[in-house]
């Protein structure tokens, strides 16, 4: 997918020039007003760019110089909006089949698959007004998928839902991408959704792409830090489950290079890949390693300093740990006393208890 578009907006010019891989979920992250919705509206054909081009697999949907600008209904790009936008006069089945072509799906295999995947069977005969917000959004997703789009755009599909509904819908979204070979461009300003869903991530600010890449690298990049609020400064660590503790409800994660991280029990088989968010406030630094008999801290890692970001009161320290990174936030006072320097080796202590269920997510593959 090649995107090279520009559009003058009220406060800035949206200028994008990038390539996005044609598989997996790419999350477009940014503050509200960063141009996220305008971006996907331009891809869908709802908004018209001032100039540029947009193509998927060599097929142009928009090309200002060649005068190509395909109408929305010809683009074969699915769109799940913030609000479900179900048609109130049609029942759920009719809503689902609105863009569906039975000819292209002779034995209704695909139809059944979507119904099953999103568990829509019990809703089919009902009408939109009888559905909860989460159910409506599930129908909207199913409706968009049944159109068999080449690309699915999702504009904060969870933002209108309360937390329980969000948690109800997230696993569906994760499954979706795993079971259907469909690239998804997912717009959000929620870090939790990024953590749970993203394969690739694109940080948008004032109409420009600041960062793009896999979630770990973008998240742990220095430029990302202003988006992770002060008390939320965190790093993403990936690893695989290596063992369960025999006596205590704890799970060990293998972070590579023989480093093991103990976290509260994750009920999944060994080898399962997990992605964990570790808050900077839960990390303390020490120059010498205490033995586990002398401290309550279970996780102590040998790290090296990869970056130092000086603040007015605090210092943010980026730590390299095997092929992962951590962020620590210490006071200027402590920083001066420890005489920390770039590339210096030291120990990071992580409070295992601070990692709870909302902090981990299973990556998609």
């Amino acid at each position, binding site marked *: 997918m090649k995107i090279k578009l520009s559009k003058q907006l009220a406060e800035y010019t949206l200028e994008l020039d990038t390539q996005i891989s044609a598989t997996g979920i790419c999350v477009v992250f940014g503050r509200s007003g960063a141009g996220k919705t305008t971006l996907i509206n331009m891809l869908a054909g709802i908004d018209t760019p001032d100039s540029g081009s947009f193509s998927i697999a060599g097929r142009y949907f928009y090309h200002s110089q060649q005068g190509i600008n395909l*109408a929305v209904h010809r683009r074969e790009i699915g769109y799940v909006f913030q609000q479900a936008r179900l*048609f109130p006069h049609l029942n759920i089945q009719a809503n689902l089949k609105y863009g569906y072509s039975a000819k292209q799906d002779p034995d209704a295999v695909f139809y059944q698959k979507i119904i099953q995947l999103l568990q829509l069977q019990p809703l089919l005969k009902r009408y939109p007004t009888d559905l909860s917000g989460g159910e409506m959004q599930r129908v909207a997703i199913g409706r*968009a998928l049944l159109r068999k789009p080449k690309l699915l755009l999702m504009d904060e599909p969870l933002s209108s839902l309360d937390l329980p509904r969000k948690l109800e819908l997230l696993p569906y979204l994760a499954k979706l991408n795993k079971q259907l070979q469909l690239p998804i461009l997912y717009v959000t300003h929620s870090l939790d959704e990024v953590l749970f869903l993203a394969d690739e991530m694109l940080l948008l600010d004032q109409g420009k792409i600041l960062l793009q890449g896999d979630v770990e690298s973008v998240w742990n990049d220095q430029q990302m830090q202003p988006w992770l609020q002060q008390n939320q400064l965190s790093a993403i660590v990936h690893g695989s489950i290596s063992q369960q503790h025999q006596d205590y409800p704890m799970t060990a994660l293998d972070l590579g290079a023989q480093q093991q991280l103990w976290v509260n029990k994750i009920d999944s088989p060994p080898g399962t890949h997990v992605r964990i968010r570790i808050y900077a406030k839960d990390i303390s630094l020490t120059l010498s390693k205490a033995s586990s008999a002398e401290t309550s801290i279970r996780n102590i890692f040998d790290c090296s300093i990869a970056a130092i970001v000086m603040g007015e009161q605090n210092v943010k320290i980026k730590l390299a740990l095997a092929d992962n990174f951590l962020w620590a936030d210490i006071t200027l006072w402590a920083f001066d006393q420890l005489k920390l320097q770039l590339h210096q080796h030291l120990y990071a202590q992580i409070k295992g208890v601070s990692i709870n269920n909302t902090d981990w997510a299973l990556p998609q593959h």
Partner: protein
Amino acid sequence: MLTEFEIQAITLSLKVAFSAVSFSLPFAIFIAWLLARGNFYGKPLLDAIVHLPLVLPPVVIGYLLLIGFSQQGPIGAWMIEYLSIDISFSWQGAALASAIVAFPLMVRAIKLSIEAVDNKLEQAASTLGANPVKVFITITLPLIVPGILSGVILAFARSLGEFGATITFVSNIPEITRTIPLAMYSFIQTPGAEQQALRLCLIAIGIALIALIGSYSLEQKMRRRIAHRN
């Protein structure tokens, strides 16, 4: 119960009103859609022209029709020569006069209901591959049925009451153009026919009431069907 004269007037009135409404409905929907969703040069002018019959004296409309559609008028002569249709001094002429006078009422009601349709639903339909015609037929049209209905009833009632334009354009010919209002006018002009005039007056009120009550309940039913709240 009803005299033959009264039955004639009632049937003629209903025939004229039905024809006027069914003939102008497709145009009204199209114009309403243009005014609600269109974005073109000269939209205020179109809006003004559509609303003109609402504010012009009906006799002006009747006079204009007489000039244009009489046998010597430019349109009337053309229609006689090429279509072999002569609408002057006929019930079709009465229907045309009614249609024009009632047109703005119908357009207004439909336009309001189109404006009330959430444009986002139409947008969602187009992302599902529906072309503009399909979007209109499958999304917009079903959602504006209550508006169309109230527009139709309003126009129908206005047609039944049409007097000025009709009598100016097609005159007051018994059995051909003498609708209920025109028949009443004749009775009022005739000394000693006060009772007949009063009977027609009650009939007119009855027809109007039936139409209004019927439209109200039909509209409620339609709204429920669209919103599916029982």
